[in-house]
């Protein structure tokens, strides 16, 4: 095995993280941190997958929550069907997860085929419209989805591989696995040859077409992958809450995902994860003093946009680069790219 190969390194990192998280689950005495992290895994996948579109392909989707919700609902509806669970037995949860992944991917593919023909703001609005349409359909099909009330009554999750999703530790480990698998997929995409094509489309779609690349197909592919991974995030949340709600596909979820990316850093791979943690931190700290968490988030965002003028991780990387640039008296832009690469390498 070639340890210098970027794929191997990315997979290795994921594996190390997984082991560390398992150790954490074993030694951590309480439940609070584990459930908090499980929640972060869910939003983490939503945000990271959206970042593949917004940050890497230049596709601003306003409707990414649709795929998040789709994952949760497919997972939940499958497991709430007694006959199916009886048929699959201990394999029910893995099968439901796989189905959620594939089903959501298919859904994203169909929407992507329609949306990718439009550019910029029209693309954004069309994805938004599809998302709201999904909310309406969920609310309208009361007998299947529970309508406004969501998938109530709990989602049965039969034990598998010795993991019982009712146990905090068990579901934490399974969620961590799904999360790392999802992030790894996105990481591999960005490192692969396809990843370079995505960046070309982001930078200059017309020129990319002139290099003989079918950019429409590139966009549909990115949209599908991102959708499927977001669906995995929905599965995690459905496991955690034992439910699914129409709000998961709501405007607010998509909106917050975009802002989380911007807050954390649009130009770095791990920026969105920083954003998720910061958002959650602001939320929880504010809650100690007051219920007005939105106010605190709003002020924080304004600060980031108007003072830092870029996401937090981007800002840190630029700062480091600037300092280094002064020290070495080197060309700033070269240092910039170097520091950016190093930060990514160090992280991976």
């Amino acid at each position, binding site marked *: 095995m070639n340890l210098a190969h970027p794929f191997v390194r990315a997979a290795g990192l994921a594996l190390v993280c997984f082991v560390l998280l398992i150790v954490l689950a074993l030694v951590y005495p309480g439940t609070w941190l584990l459930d908090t992290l499980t929640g972060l895994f869910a939003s983490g996948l939503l945000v990271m997958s959206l970042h593949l579109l917004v940050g890497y392909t230049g596709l601003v989707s306003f409707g990414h929550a649709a795929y998040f919700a789709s994952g949760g609902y497919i997972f939940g509806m499958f497991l709430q069907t007694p006959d199916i669970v009886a048929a699959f037995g201990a394999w029910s949860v893995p099968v439901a997860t796989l189905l959620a992944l594939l089903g959501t991917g298919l859904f994203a593919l169909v929407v992507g085929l329609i949306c990718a023909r439009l550019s910029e703001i029209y693309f954004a609005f069309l994805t938004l419209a599809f998302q709201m349409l999904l909310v309406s359909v969920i609310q309208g099909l009361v007998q299947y989805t529970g309508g406004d009330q969501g998938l109530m009554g709990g989602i049965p999750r039969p034990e598998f591989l010795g993991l019982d999703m009712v146990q905090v530790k068990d579901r934490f480990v399974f969620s961590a696995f799904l999360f790392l698998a999802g992030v790894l997929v996105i990481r591999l995409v960005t490192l692969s040859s396809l990843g370079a*094509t995505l*960046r070309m489309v982001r930078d200059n779609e017309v020129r990319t077409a002139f290099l003989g*690349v079918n950019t429409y197909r590139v966009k549909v592919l990115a949209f599908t992958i991102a959708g499927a991974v977001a669906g995995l995030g929905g599965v995690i949340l459905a496991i955690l809450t034992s439910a699914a709600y129409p709000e998961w596909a709501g405007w607010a979820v998509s909106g917050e995902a975009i802002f989380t990316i911007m807050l954390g850093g649009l130009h770095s791979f791990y920026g969105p994860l920083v954003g998720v943690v910061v958002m959650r931190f602001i939320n929880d700290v504010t809650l100690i003093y007051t219920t007005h968490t939105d106010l605190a988030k709003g002020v924080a965002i304004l600060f980031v946009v108007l003072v830092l003028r870029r996401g937090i991780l981007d800002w840190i990387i630029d700062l480091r680069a600037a300092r280094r640039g002064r020290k070495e008296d080197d060309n700033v832009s070269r240092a910039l790219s170097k520091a950016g690469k190093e930060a990514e390498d160090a992280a991976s």
Partner: protein
Amino acid sequence: MLRLDHLVKKFGGLTATNDVTLDFPAGTLSAIIGPNGAGKTTLFNQITGHLVPTSGKIVFAGEDITGMKPAAIVRKGIGRAFQVANIFPTMTVEEALASAVSAHAHAAFELSSAFPRRDVKTRTEELLALLGMEPVARRISGEISHGDQKLLDVGLALALDPKLLLLDEPAAGMGPEERWQMMDTVQRLWKSQNMTLIFIEHDIDLVFRTAEIIHVLRYGAVLASGQADEIRGNPEVIEAYLGSETDATEADSREEPA
């Protein structure tokens, strides 16, 4: 290699390409000159599928490519650089070239290989050397000098190993020194790469020195074709183009009308 057959392109009342019939034999280095608005870029846009001709035929390597999609035409082996440098501003020079090479190596959709694939990397390094762009290889494309950006644009086209390379004013917007250098590079590329090359240029001196065959375009129509001497001596050309107008058009680099 490329034959234009009674090509006509109309924009409403304006005839931008007026019954152009031209032949570009394989392996030649030809230039197209003509005043602003003569329809030079429009001609390129039709060859590369950006625009569909109103009538007439475009035949490339024996095949009628009229009306084909740009991406399909690129795959037939026609590469193109643009009047206004058309690059990938946030990528490094190296990364941009490698991406283009990767696309040409059918790896654009490849998930199984890390970027850049080994063969892609090798070819990219060759290209960097060929273009003399190693010193700026790791700089961000959007931040390098204008001349380097134009060169990178040519490099992107070159990455496709084109049989026919179209360069729209490769030296536009450069200082006198740089222009000569650029034309030298173009000539060197043409010699080393064994391809057919057509470039557009306003500067008569540059054209006379660089091109084997020159086509003069005016009001969308071909005014004259031939070698430098013939063109130099053509009274019509002298009157229409080599007059006082040259100075005014030289430094011009308007936006691409596409």
